[in-house]
C-alpha cells in the first residue's frame, strides 16, 4: 500500500489508529497519578472531603501529546518505507547490462557499480538470468545467474580508453541470442558505432539507459608556450561553473614524489573548456611528472607530462664570430633558429659554460681546443654530456684526428675533405641515403631538396660502420657518433650553416636535432616524426587515473604512439625511447569531448535512485521523544518539576545577562556585605582549601571572642578579583604558584599603599628571615620583588601587634619560629617615659612575613573541629590557642590601626583634660 512516496509493509496495523479516540476517552477518564507528599499538617486534613468527585482533568495538549506518541508507535510498527522500490513491474527474460566501461565512467564508477549490483539483485529476486557486456573490453557474455554476475561486478574496473568502433562492432557480434532486456550504463561520451549497437539491442528487447548527471572532464596535456605553462581541461557538455584544482605532481630534490604546485582551474558556466596559465621556475617545471585534477578519479583527469616541459640547456660555441654583417653565414644562426623554441641556449667561452653543466655542447667548426679545455670537455662528456660537433673549413684544414682518433672525435678524418657538385668539381651534389634501422634517425622522411656539396671525409676504420648514423647516397658518412663514457660525441660532417649543404635549411635538420635529443620534443610532434621508432611503456594509467608500472607491456610503434586510438595495445602512459620520453594522454590538444545523445524513445535514467528508507525507526524514536516530553509535562503539571524548572529559567536568565558584570557584582557584593578575610588563590587546590579552612577558623574565633564578626572567608584571584575590598589577605607561598601579571602587581601595590595588609606565609618554619634558604623563601622573594614593601624588621617586643587584643610575645602557627617580619620602626622612635614601649604611631604594617603555617593551625571544619594537629598533646593545644591569639591580634591591628599604640597617650590626654 502506498501513501504518497511512503509504502507500508504491514498496512493492516494502521487500523490501530481507529483505536485512538477510544484511548482519548480512557485517558481522560483516568486521573493522573497522585503525588505523595510528606506534610505534618495532615493531622488537620483528616476527615475533609473533596467537594467534587472528579479529579483535575488531564489537559488536552497533554492528551494530544500522548495520542501523537501512540499514533507514532502504530504507524512505526506498520513498517513505513520511503521510496519503496516495488513500483516496477517485474520483468521477465534475461537481462543484459551493457557498460561503456571507459575512463569517462570512472568518475561515477562506484555509483554505476552499485546500481548495476542493485539491478542484478532485483533480477536475481525475480529469477532472471543476467549478463554483463563491457564495450571497452567486449567478451562473450553468457546469461548466467544474476548472483554470479554480482560477485564479479566488484572486480570490474573501467578501462583507461573509450570504446572504439572496432570494439563496438565486436560487441555486436558477441551479443547473446534470444530476446532480453538491456540496461545500458553509458559513460556520457559519444561512441562511434553506438547507433548500430543500439539498433541491435532494440531488436532484442527494451533498452533502458542509465547516465550520470556529471559530464566527464579530461585534462589536456600541458604545453609550454611563451615562458608559461598552459593548462587546459575539457568537458563533454557545458553546465554550471565548476571549480577544479590541478595538482602538479613530481619528484622533489630528494626524489620523493609530492605535489609541487596546486593550480586553480575554472569552467565558466556553459563552457566546455577551461584554461589557465602557470608560471613555474624551470627547475620545478622540469620535475613535474603529471598534472592531476584533484578529486576526480579517472584517466582523463590525469595528464602525464613528458620531456616537452623540460628544456635542455644547449651551449653553442663557434670559433668564428668575427664576420660582421653576415648573419646568415654565421655557423650558429641555423642552430639558434632550430633550437630556440625548445631549448635554453647558452653562448660564451667554453670554460665559462662548462660549470653551468649544459645538457648539450655544440662546437661549430672548432678544430683545436687547449689541453685544459679538452680535459674539461672530456670529463663532461664522460659524465653523460652530448657533444655535437659540426665540420667546417677549419676542421677540414686542421690536423685534428688525422692520424689517431681524437677522443672528442667519433672518427678519423681524411685531410681536406671533398667538394662535389660545385663549379670546380665533377658530379652532382649528393643527397642523403635513407636512414638505416639502427640509426636514431630511422623513419624520418628525407626531403628531396637536401643536398650536400662539401663534407669532411672519415677515414675507413673497422669501427666506422658502427659509428655512422647517417650517410649520403654514395655511402660516405654524413653523421657519425661515438660513445664516450656515459655520453656521446656526434660529428656532423657538414657545417652548421648552409655553406656546405642545404641540410640546415630543411625541416629535417630540426628533426635530426630532436632525434639526437639535442632539443626536446616540440609541441608540433606528429606521427611521422616518430616513424620507425619503437617506444617502450614506462608507466601506464589505469581507468581510475592511477599511475602503474608498465611491467611487461609490449613496446609501441612510434607511428602509432601519437595518433592511434587508445586500447589494450596502446594504453595512456609514459613511453620511453632513445633517450626521450613521450607521454600519451587520454585526450590530446585537439580532441573534442562530445556528449552522448540518445534518441527520444530511449528512457535515460539517473544513476542515483532514491534509496528505500525504512521510516519505522524514526517514528519509534519520535514516539520515545514524545513520551519523554510527556514525562516532563506530567511532572510539570503535578508540580514536581518546580526545582528543575526554576533552574532552567535561572540558567536561561543568567546566560542572557552579561556574564562578567554579574560575576563581578556578585563578588563585590559578597565581599562587602560583611567583613571578610581573604586568601590569595595559589592554584594548589589543597593549599587553597587549607587557607580557606584556616581563615574560617580565624573568623570563627574572631566572631566568638571579639566584636569583629567576619563572614565566611573568600578566595581571591589576583588577576580577576578586586582585592581592595578585603582588609586582610593571607598569602601562602608555594614554589609552584604562578607569578602575578603586571596588572595584578599594580593592584597589589595600590592595595598595600592604601592600608591593606598581606600576611605572607612561607610555611617552612625556619627560614623566614633568611631569604633564599628554601624554595618557598626563594619564591617569596621572587613574588615580592615587584611589590612596594617598606624596610622590614623582626617584630620588636614593643610592636603594637603584641598588644592589640591579647598580650603576645610569640607568634606561633603550626610551627613556632620566632622570626616574623613587619615594617621597620622609624629610627628616631624613642621610648616613652614610664612606658615599656617606644612611641610608634601611625600606620599599619602593610606586610607581615613569616613561615609558621598559621592557616594550618587556624584551620577548622564547619563544625569547629580542628583540621590539623598542632604540636604534641596539650602543649599543642596551647600553641594553637596562641596561634589564634596572633590571628586575632593581627586582624585587630588591621582594623584598629595604631589605636592601641595611641593608648600610651591616654595619661597625657587625661592630664591635659584635667587641667
Amino acid at each position, binding site marked *: 500500500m502506498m501513501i504518497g512516496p511512503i509504502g507500508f509493509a504491514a498496512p493492516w496495523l494502521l487500523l490501530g489508529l481507529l483505536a485512538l479516540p477510544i484511548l482519548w476517552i480512557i485517558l481522560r477518564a483516568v486521573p493522573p497519578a497522585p503525588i505523595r507528599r510528606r*506534610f505534618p*499538617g495532615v493531622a488537620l486534613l483528616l476527615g475533609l472531603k473533596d467537594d467534587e468527585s472528579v479529579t483535575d482533568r488531564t489537559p488536552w495538549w497533554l492528551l494530544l501529546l500522548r495520542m501523537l506518541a501512540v499514533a507514532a508507535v502504530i504507524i512505526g510498527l506498520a513498517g513505513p518505507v520511503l521510496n519503496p522500490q516495488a513500483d516496477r513491474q517485474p520483468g521477465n527474460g534475461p537481462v543484459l547490462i551493457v557498460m561503456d566501461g571507459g575512463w569517462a565512467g570512472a568518475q561515477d564508477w562506484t555509483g554505476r557499480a552499485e546500481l548495476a549490483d542493485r539491478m542484478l539483485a532485483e533480477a536475481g529476486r525475480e529469477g532472471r538470468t543476467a549478463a554483463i557486456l563491457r564495450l571497452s573490453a567486449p567478451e562473450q557474455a553468457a546469461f548466467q545467474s544474476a548472483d554470479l554476475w554480482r560477485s564479479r561486478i566488484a572486480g570490474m574496473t573501467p578501462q583507461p580508453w573509450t570504446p572504439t568502433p572496432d570494439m563496438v562492432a565486436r560487441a555486436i557480434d558477441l551479443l547473446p541470442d534470444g530476446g532480453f532486456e538491456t540496461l545500458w550504463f553509458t559513460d556520457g561520451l559519444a561512441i562511434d558505432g553506438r547507433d548500430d549497437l543500439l539498433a541491435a539491442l532494440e531488436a532484442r528487447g527494451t533498452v533502458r539507459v542509465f547516465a550520470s548527471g556529471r559530464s566527464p572532464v579530461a585534462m589536456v596535456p600541458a604545453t609550454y608556450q611563451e615562458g608559461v605553462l598552459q593548462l587546459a581541461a575539457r568537458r563533454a557538455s557545458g553546465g554550471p561553473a565548476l571549480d577544479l584544482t590541478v595538482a602538479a605532481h613530481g619528484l622533489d630534490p630528494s626524489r620523493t614524489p609530492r605535489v609541487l604546485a596546486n593550480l586553480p582551474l575554472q569552467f565558466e558556466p556553459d563552457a566546455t573548456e577551461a584554461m589557465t596559465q602557470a608560471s613555474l621556475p624551470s627547475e620545478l617545471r622540469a620535475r613535474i611528472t603529471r598534472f592531476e585534477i584533484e578529486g576526480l578519479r579517472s584517466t582523463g583527469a590525469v595528464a602525464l607530462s613528458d620531456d616537452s616541459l623540460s628544456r635542455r640547456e644547449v651551449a653553442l660555441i663557434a670559433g668564428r664570430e668575427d664576420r660582421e654583417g653576415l648573419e646568415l653565414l654565421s655557423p650558429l644562426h641555423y642552430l639558434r633558429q632550430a633550437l630556440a623554441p625548445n631549448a635554453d641556449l647558452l653562448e660564451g667561452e667554453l670554460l665559462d659554460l662548462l660549470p653551468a653543466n649544459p645538457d648539450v655542447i655544440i662546437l661549430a667548426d672548432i678544430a683545436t681546443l687547449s689541453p685544459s679545455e679538452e680535459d674539461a670537455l672530456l670529463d663532461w662528456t664522460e659524465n653523460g654530456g652530448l657533444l655535437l660537433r659540426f665540420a667546417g673549413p677549419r676542421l677540414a684544414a686542421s690536423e685534428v684526428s688525422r692520424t689517431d682518433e681524437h677522443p672528442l672525435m667519433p672518427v678519423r678524418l681524411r685531410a681536406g675533405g671533398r667538394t662535389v657538385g660545385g663549379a670546380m668539381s665533377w658530379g652532382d651534389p649528393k643527397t642523403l641515403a635513407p636512414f638505416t634501422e639502427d640509426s636514431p634517425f630511422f623513419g624520418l622522411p628525407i626531403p628531396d631538396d637536401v643536398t650536400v656539396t662539401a663534407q669532411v671525409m672519415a677515414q675507413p676504420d673497422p669501427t666506422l660502420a658502427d659509428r655512422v648514423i647517417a650517410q649520403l647516397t654514395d655511402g660516405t658518412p654524413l653523421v657519425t657518433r661515438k660513445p664516450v663514457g656515459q655520453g656521446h660525441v656526434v660529428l656532423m660532417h657538414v657545417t652548421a650553416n648552409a655553406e656546405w649543404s642545404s641540410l640546415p635549411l630543411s625541416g629535417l635538420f630540426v628533426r635530426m636535432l630532436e632525434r639526437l635529443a639535442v632539443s626536446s620534443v616540440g609541441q608540433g610532434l606528429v606521427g611521422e616524426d616518430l616513424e620507425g621508432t619503437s617506444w617502450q611503456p614506462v608507466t601506464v594509467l589505469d581507468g581510475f587515473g592511477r599511475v602503474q608500472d608498465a611491467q611487461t607491456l609490449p613496446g609501441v610503434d612510434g607511428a602509432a604512439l601519437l595518433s592511434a586510438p587508445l586500447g589494450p595495445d596502446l594504453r595512456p602512459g609514459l613511453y620511453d625511447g632513445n633517450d626521450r620520453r613521450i607521454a600519451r594522454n587520454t585526450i590530446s590538444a585537439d580532441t573534442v569531448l562530445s556528449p552522448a545523445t540518445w534518441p527520444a524513445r530511449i528512457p535515460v535514467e539517473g544513476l542515483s535512485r532514491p534509496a528505500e528508507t525504512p521510516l519505522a525507526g524514526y517514528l519509534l524514536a519520535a514516539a520515545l521523544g514524545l513520551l519523554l516530553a510527556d514525562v516532563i509535562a506530567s511532572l510539570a503539571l*503535578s508540580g514536581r518539576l518546580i526545582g528543575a524548572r526554576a533552574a532552567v529559567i535561572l540558567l536561561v536568565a543568567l546566560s542572557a545577562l552579561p556574564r562578567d558584570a554579574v560575576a563581578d557584582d556578585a563578588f563585590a557584593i559578597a565581599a562587602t556585605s560583611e567583613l571578610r578575610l581573604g586568601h590569595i588563590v595559589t592554584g594548589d587546590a589543597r593549599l587553597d582549601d587549607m587557607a580557606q579552612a584556616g581563615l574560617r577558623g580565624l573568623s570563627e574565633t574572631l566572631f566568638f571572642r571579639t566584636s569583629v564578626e567576619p563572614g565566611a572567608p573568600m578566595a581571591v584571584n589576583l588577576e580577576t578579583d578586586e582585592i581592595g575590598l578585603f582588609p586582610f589577605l593571607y598569602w601562602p607561598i608555594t614554589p609552584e604558584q604562578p607569578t602575578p601579571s603586571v596588572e595584578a602587581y599594580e593592584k597589589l601595590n595600590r592595595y598595600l599603599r592604601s592600608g591593606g595588609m598581606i600576611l605572607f606565609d612561607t610555611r617552612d618554619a625556619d627560614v623566614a628571615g633568611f631569604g633564599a634558604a628554601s624554595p618557598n623563601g626563594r619564591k617569596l622573594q621572587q613574588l615580592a620583588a615587584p611589590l612596594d614593601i617598606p624596610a622590614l624588621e623582626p617584630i620588636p617586643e614593643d610592636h603594637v601587634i603584641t598588644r592589640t587584643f591579647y598580650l603576645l610575645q610569640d607568634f606561633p602557627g603550626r610551627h613556632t619560629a620566632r622570626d616574623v617580619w613587619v615594617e621597620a620602626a622609624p629610627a628616631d622612635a624613642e621610648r616613652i617615659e614610664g612606658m615599656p614601649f617606644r612611641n610608634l604611631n601611625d600606620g599599619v604594617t602593610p606586610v607581615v612575613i613569616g613561615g609558621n603555617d598559621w592557616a594550618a593551625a587556624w584551620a577548622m571544619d564547619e563544625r569547629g573541629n580542628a583540621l590539623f594537629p598542632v604540636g604534641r598533646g596539650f602543649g599543642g593545644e596551647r600553641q594553637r590557642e596562641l596561634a589564634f591569639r596572633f590571628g586575632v591580634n593581627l586582624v585587630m591591628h588591621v582594623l584598629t590601626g595604631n589605636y592601641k599604640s595611641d593608648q600610651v597617650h591616654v595619661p597625657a590626654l587625661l592630664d591635659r583634660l584635667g587641667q
Partner: protein
Amino acid sequence: MTQPHPLTLRARAEAEAARFPPLLARAEYLAGTVLLGEHGRRRAGQGDDFWQYRPVRQGDPVRMIDWRRSARGDMQFVREREWQIAQSVMLWVDQAASMRFASDPNLPEKADRARLLALAVAVLLVRGGERVGLTGTALPPRRGNAQLLRLAEMFSRDEDMDYGIPEARAMIPQARAMFVSDFLSDLLPVQAALTKAADRGVRGVLIQVLDPSEEAFPFQGRTIFQSMGGTLAHETLKAGDLRGRYLERLAERKAALADLCAATGWQYQCHHTDAAAQSALLWVWRALERGAGT
C-alpha cells in the same frame, strides 16, 4: 536491632558530640543578643540584695533584727532582702517526627528552630541563675553550665513517634514551663498537660513552631498527604480545594491553643521557621519575665 558494637560507640559518640556544640554555640550567640534585665522578684524574700527595712513584727526571730538601723531610733527594724530565690524552668521540646519537617532546603527544620529557641532560653536562664531542666523525669532542673551541655545532649535526640505528646509529669509546683511544638496533633493531651500544670500552679509559655508551607498550604492537584512518620495519610483529588478549609482548621487550632493558654494562665505565641529566631526569643524572654511578675 542489634546492639551497637562497643568499638563503634566512641566514634558514634564523637559524631553525636560534634553535633551539639554548634547548637549550643548558636544558642549562646542568640542568647547574647538579649541583655539580661532585672530579675529580682520585686518582693521581700531570700536573697543578697537589700529590699527594705520594716518594723519588727510578731514572730520575727531576734537575730533578724538589724541592729545598726534600729540603733538610730526607738523602733526595731528588720532588714529584708529581695526575694531572689532561683526559679525552676522546665522545658518541653517536641522531638517527634512531625517536627523534622522543612518545606524548603533553605529553611531550618521545625525541630531545629524549636531546640535552638529552647536552648537559647536555657542559656539565658542559666546566666540569670535560674534552674533549667526538662519536664518529666529525664532531666530535672539544675543550675550551671553543665546543665546546658546536658540539655543540648537531650535536644540532639530524635524521637520516632509521629506527633509529640506534651510531657507534664513531675511538674514542680509553682515552677515555670516552656512548651515548644507544632501542636498539630490531637489537642487533648496538650489540654490535659496544661490543665495539670495549671493545677500545680505552673505557668509558662506555649510556642507553636510552624513551617511557612503549613501556614500557606500551597498544594495543587491529586495528592496523598502523609505524616512524617507515615502513620497518617489523607488522599485528595484536588489539593487546591482543601486550602480554605485547612486554613480554617489551622486558625481554629490556633484559637483553641490561645484559649487554652488564657484559661490556664499561660501565654501563647506562634512562630514560623522563616522568621528570625531572635524575635521569638525576645518574646519568650519577656513572657517568662512577665510570668515571673505575676
